[in-house]
């Protein structure tokens, strides 16, 4: 079993590494949207520093959404999904590993990059660690929902991605931003982190099995 998992992981990792668009497009999208806010709202540091957590979170949410939607499309198009089902091994490993690799390549760079928000949006630097942990805890949940949207609308281009992912990621968005704002008001944000962790652990099996069911659909 682990040999299979290792091989799937290695293949996904190599194919993501070789296709630079998987990690470049979220980064570029993130930077552009971050730059939009000061231009659109105001460049007064006081305003921006108040809005910084929310803006960062929205930009991370949108860029993760951008790259997660066609997580299964490529395998569906080139037939490796058919071959995978012909081998009749556990699809759970495939789904979990694909989400993990996609998260590593699309969300992790953005989280690291979001530390530049301290300069761009005048986020108070002591709250950066809190922002990063909230992003680290939140983006896996977004990737889970994105994978489900990808599995449901395999190969069909539909409004489904945002229509599914954004409402479902509301709890994580709210908890993430209020973690940072409550830290700035001096409270202890551990409540929000624990809640986000709880949501992730609760959703992981549920959404993975939903993804498997959704993938199976296209083979009936």
């Amino acid at each position, binding site marked *: 079993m682990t040999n299979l998992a290792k091989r799937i992981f290695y293949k996904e990792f190599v194919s993501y590494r070789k296709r630079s668009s998987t990690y470049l497009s979220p980064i570029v999208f993130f930077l552009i949207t971050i730059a939009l806010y000061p231009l659109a709202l105001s460049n007064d540091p006081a305003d921006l520093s108040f809005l910084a957590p929310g803006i960062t979170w929205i930009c991370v949410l949108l860029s993760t959404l951008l790259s997660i939607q066609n997580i299964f499309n490529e395998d569906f198009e080139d037939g490796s999904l058919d071959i995978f089902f012909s081998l009749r091994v556990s699809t759970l490993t495939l789904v979990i590993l694909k989400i993990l690799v996609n998260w590593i390549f699309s969300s992790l760079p953005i989280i690291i990059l979001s530390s530049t928000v301290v300069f761009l949006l005048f986020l108070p630097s002591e709250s950066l660690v809190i922002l990063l942990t909230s992003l680290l805890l939140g983006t896996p949940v977004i990737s889970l929902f994105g994978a489900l949207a990808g599995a449901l609308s395999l190969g069909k281009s539909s409004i489904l991605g945002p*229509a599914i992912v954004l409402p479902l990621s509301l709890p994580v968005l709210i908890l993430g931003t209020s973690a940072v704002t409550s830290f700035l008001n001096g409270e202890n944000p551990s409540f929000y982190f624990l809640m986000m962790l709880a949501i992730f652990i609760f959703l992981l099996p549920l959404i993975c099995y939903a993804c498997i069911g959704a993938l199976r*659909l296209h083979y*009936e």
Partner: protein
Amino acid sequence: MNRAFNSLKTFYHKLGSSPWFYRISEITIPYLALFSFLFLSIGIVWGVFFSPTDFKQGDVYRIIYMHVPAASVSQSIYYTMTVAAVVSIIWRMKMAGIFIKSMAPIGASFTFLALISGSIWGQPTWGTWWIWDARLTSTLVLFIFYIAIISLYSSFSEKKSADQAVSILTLVGAVNLPIIKKSVDWWNTLHQPASIKFTESSSISPEMLYPLIISIFGFYLVVLLSGLMAMRAEIAKREINKEWFKNY
């Protein structure tokens, strides 16, 4: 006991077969139409025109006779769709898929009604058309869910897989809706806007309460009626070239 269980099983089995459902619904629709029209008109007319005016909000409170039933109906439609989703996934019952597909637009329209009436009601009391309070935001999320379900259904050509996909999405939505409601409430307490409590209207006097109950009942009957009709249309669409439908 065994006989009762068998009859229950046969009833459940028959419920699944579309010809039986088609015939039964044809009989019940006229009565249902009569009752729902009756309850609906009594409830709304009594509430909107003849119930006493509220001393605090004046006549604008009469919108509750449309808003409260619409909000409660939109919630319960989603719960019934969740039950149908479970049935459709476990027993792969065709009728459950048809139920979800026909109820989704109805749920969406009543959620839309709840949103519109909520914001119209809010306008005189707060001076703005929309206010980000917990209940209205959760209703907006529910509305987006309905739209997601409808658009997912239409993106499938094959009916069988469409039903399954929609059931999966409904279930995931059903699990997440309470979480979303909870987090919206947290968010609401965190950014508590200084405004009156929107939802709990002042202690509602009996004269106002009776029409409300009747109109809620009327709303549920109308939903049931339009649900049955939508399911008949969906059955016709799916079984147009089936024998039983041809010589029906």
